C-alpha cells in the first residue's frame, strides 16, 4: 500500500531532562521502597501514589519531554512533581497494562476471546497519567479501547479477562465483551462501540456533575478518527455555552483504523479544533506530562468550562485483532516509536537514573506482574458462561413485564424479566 506523503515520526525529543537531588536521600528512598516490599493489594489493582512529602519522601521534579502547546490558553509548566513511589507505581501499573494487553492478544489468537478486541498497548501513559491527576468521583468515558482505562479505574484483572471471554463474572456479566467494560463505583462510564457517540454522553455527565456541586469533572476520551464526527462539535458547542466541567481528551494515535490522520482531517491539530474552546497538546507517551495536563485541565474546567486535551500517543497493535497494523504503516515506524517514546521505558530510565530502584528490582516487578496476569487468566478460564436466561435480562427494568415473542413457535410468548 503506497503513501504519497512520507510519514514523519511524531517529533518529540526522546529523553526527558531530569533534575537530580542529592543522591544519598535517593538511595535511602530506594532502599525503603525496594520493589519486592511493595504491598500487593488485590482489591484495587493500582497502587495509589503517595501524597508528596507527608510520608517523608523527597519529591522529584521532572521536566516533561516537550513543553505543552496551548490553544487560547496559557499552558502549564513543564516541570512536574513526582515521588519515587509514584514513579514505581507508574512503572508497575503500566507494565501490568502492557502485559494484560499482550496476554489478551494470545487469548484472542487461541480463540478464547472472540468477537472484537481493541488493544491499548503503547497508550498506557494516558490511562495512568489521567488516573493520577483525578479522583474516583470524577467520571471517565471512552470508546472501545477501554481495557486499560477499566484497570486504571480500579477494575480487576479477573473481571477483565472474564468479560473478554464472555464469562458470567465479567464486569458486564459477560454481556458486553471487550468494547463494553463499565465500573459504576469508580465513575467509569464505559466502553462504547459506536465511534464518537460517547462524547455527547460525556458532556451530559459533566452537566449532571455541575448540578451536584461536588467539584468533580468528566473526561470524555475519543480518538483521532472520532474527531471528525459531527456529534463532537454539537457536544462542544453545548458544553461551551453552558460552561460544563468536561474535558475532551483526543487520544491521537495518528490512525483511525487504517487511515492516517492527515488523510482524514483537514486540520490534524485536534487540540485547536474546539476553536472557541481552549486546548492543550500533550506528549501522550510521557505519563508525567499527561498527569500535569489532566490536573491543569480539571482545575480549568471547574472554573471555566470545557477544554480539549490532545494526547499525542501511539498504539503498537493494529486497530483491532483483525488488523495486523502493518499495511498502512511501516514496521520501522512502529519499532521507532517503541525505541524512542515507549512510556514504560521512559519511566524505567527515570527510575534508574534517580536510583529509585535497581534494574533487577524492576525486573522482579515485571516477573510479578506476569505471574499476576497469568493467574488471573487461569482463574478467569474456570468461570462458566452466563446462564442462557441472561439473554433476556436487562433489556428493560426488571419486572417491567414486557412481552416478547419466542422464535420457536408463534404460540410461545415470554415476559421479559
Amino acid at each position, binding site marked *: 500500500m503506497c503513501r504519497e506523503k512520507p510519514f514523519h515520526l511524531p517529533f518529540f525529543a526522546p529523553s526527558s531532562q531530569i533534575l537530580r537531588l542529592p543522591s544519598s536521600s535517593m538511595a535511602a528512598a530506594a532502599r525503603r521502597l525496594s520493589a519486592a516490599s511493595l504491598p500487593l493489594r488485590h482489591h484495587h489493582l493500582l497502587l495509589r501514589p503517595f501524597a508528596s512529602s507527608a510520608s517523608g519522601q523527597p519529591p522529584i521534579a521532572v521536566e516533561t519531554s516537550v513543553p505543552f502547546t496551548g490553544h487560547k490558553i496559557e499552558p502549564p509548566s513543564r516541570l512536574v512533581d513526582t515521588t519515587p513511589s509514584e514513579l514505581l507505581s507508574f512503572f508497575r501499573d503500566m507494565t501490568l497494562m502492557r502485559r494484560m494487553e499482550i496476554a489478551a492478544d494470545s487469548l484472542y489468537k487461541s480463540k478464547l476471546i472472540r468477537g472484537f478486541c481493541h488493544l491499548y498497548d503503547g497508550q498506557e501513559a494516558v490511562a495512568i497519567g489521567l488516573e493520577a491527576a483525578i479522583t474516583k468521583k470524577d467520571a471517565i468515558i471512552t470508546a472501545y479501547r477501554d481495557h486499560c482505562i477499566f484497570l486504571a479505574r480500579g477494575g480487576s484483572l479477573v473481571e477483565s479477562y472474564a468479560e473478554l471471554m*464472555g464469562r458470567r463474572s465479567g464486569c458486564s456479566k*459477560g454481556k458486553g465483551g471487550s468494547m463494553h467494560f463499565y465500573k459504576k463505583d469508580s465513575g467509569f462510564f464505559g466502553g462504547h462501540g459506536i465511534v*464518537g457517540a460517547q462524547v455527547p454522553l460525556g458532556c451530559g455527565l459533566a452537566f449532571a456533575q455541575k448540578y451536584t456541586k461536588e467539584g468533580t469533572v468528566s473526561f470524555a476520551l475519543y480518538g483521532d478518527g472520532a474527531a471528525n464526527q*459531527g456529534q463532537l462539535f454539537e457536544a462542544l458547542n453545548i458544553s461551551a455555552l453552558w460552561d460544563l466541567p468536561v474535558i475532551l481528551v483526543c487520544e491521537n494515535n495518528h490512525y483511525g483504523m487504517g487511515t492516517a490522520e492527515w488523510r482524514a482531517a483537514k486540520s490534524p491539530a485536534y487540540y485547536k479544533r474546539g476553536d472557541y474552546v481552549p486546548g492543550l497538546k500533550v506528549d501522550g507517551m510521557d505519563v508525567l506530562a499527561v498527569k500535569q495536563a489532566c490536573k491543569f485541565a480539571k482545575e480549568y474546567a471547574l472554573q471555566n468550562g470545557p477544554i480539549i486535551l490532545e494526547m499525542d500517543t501511539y498504539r503498537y497493535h493494529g486497530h483491532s485483532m483483525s488488523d495486523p497494523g502493518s499495511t498502512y504503516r511501516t514496521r520501522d515506524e512502529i519499532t521507532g516509536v517503541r525505541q524512542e517514546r515507549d512510556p514504560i521505558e521512559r519511566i524505567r530510565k527515570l527510575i534508574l537514573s534517580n536510583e529509585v530502584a535497581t534494574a533487577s528490582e524492576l525486573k522482579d516487578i515485571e516477573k510479578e506482574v506476569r505471574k499476576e496476569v497469568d493467574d488471573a487468566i487461569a482463574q478467569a478460564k474456570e468461570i462458566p458462561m452466563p446462564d442462557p436466561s441472561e439473554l433476556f435480562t436487562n433489556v428493560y427494568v426488571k419486572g417491567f413485564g414486557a412481552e416478547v415473542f419466542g*422464535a420457536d413457535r*408463534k404460540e410461545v410468548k415470554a415476559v421479559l424479566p
Partner: protein
Amino acid sequence: MATTMALRSFGRRTSIAARGFSSSCETEKAAKDGKPINLFSAINQALHIALDTDPRAYVFGEDVRFGGVFRCTTGLADRFGRSRVFNTPLCEQGIVGFAIGLAAMGNRAIAEIQFADYIYPAFDQIVNEAAKFRYRSGNEFNCGGLTIRTPYGAVGHGGHYHSQSPESFFCHVPGLKVVIPRSPQQAKGLLLSCIRDPNPSIFFEPKWLYRLAVEEVPEHDYMLPLSEAEVIRQGSDITLVGWGAQLSVLEQACVEAAKEGISCELIDLRTLIPWDKETVEASVRKTGKLLISHEAPVTGGFGAEISASIAESCFLRLEAPVARICGLDTPFPLVYEQFYMPTKNKILDAIKATVNY
C-alpha cells in the same frame, strides 16, 4: 442447467451440500458463462462495471480506497483514479449527506457505510433528505443516483454492533428502495439495478456470505429486476419468504421438511420496498400457509408488514396463522448469538406447526 451455489464450512457453522436453484427464466439467461466467485468479488465486479459504464459514477466511504474492509472495492481506485474512488472521514451523517448532494447534481453516488450498525447517524439524511427530495420539490430535483451499500447481518461473532439487520427501519420510508441479495450472482445484478435505478436505494449485503457463498457469476454486464420476488423452490404445502443470508437457512429447513413429506415453496423477496406482493399472494393462494423468517427482531421487523398485508389480501385462503421466525426481542447478543438467531430447527418447528394447524 441449474446454477449451483456451494457454502463452505466456517467456524461453528456446518457446511451444506451444493444445491441447485430451481431454474427460472432470468437465472438461466444470466448464468450463461460464469466463473465461480464469492459475494465480495461479485459486488466488486458490479462496481467495476458501474464505474466503467457511467463516467459520472463515484464510489466512496470509509477505507474504500485500499479495497475496503471486506474487499468489495478492490482495484477500483487503481483503475478509475482517486477522484472517483475515495475515502471519507469517519462521519456517516456527512457521508450520506454529501452523497445526496452529489446525486442531486445528476451523478451516481455509491456510498458505503462500513457496517449497517453505523447507519444511524445518517438516518436523518436518508429519511428526511434522500427519500423526500423528489416529492417535496415537485419533481424538480431528485437524488435518484444515490445508492448506499452496507454490510448487514450476523457473522458469528459480531456482537451488538457488527451484526444488526436494520432493514425494517428503512422499509417504513416511502421514497426509498431497499434491496437485499441472497447470493453472488443475484448481488451483481441487483446492485447494478440499484445503481442505475432512478430512486435512492439502500443495498444491504449479507456479510456472512462475503466469503462463504461461491457461485458461478457471468462476467458481463447484467441487471436483475427490482421489486420482483423470485420463487427459488416450488412447493405446495407452505410458502416460506425470506431474504439475504436467511434464505440458506430456510433452504436447509425446506430440505429437512421434504424428508417429512412437507413440500415447501421458497420465495426470495429481493426487494423489500416496494415489495412484490403479487408473487407472494399467488404463492399463498396456492399453499394456504405462510412463514416469514428474518434475522432482525420479530417485533416490528419487516415480516410484520408482510404478514399483515397477506392476512388482508388472502384472509379466506389462509389455513393457519402466518408464522414469523425471527430474531428475539433483545439487543443482538454477544455470547448467546445462536440462541438469538432464527435457526433451521426453529423454522422446521414452525413449518410443522403451521402445516399441522
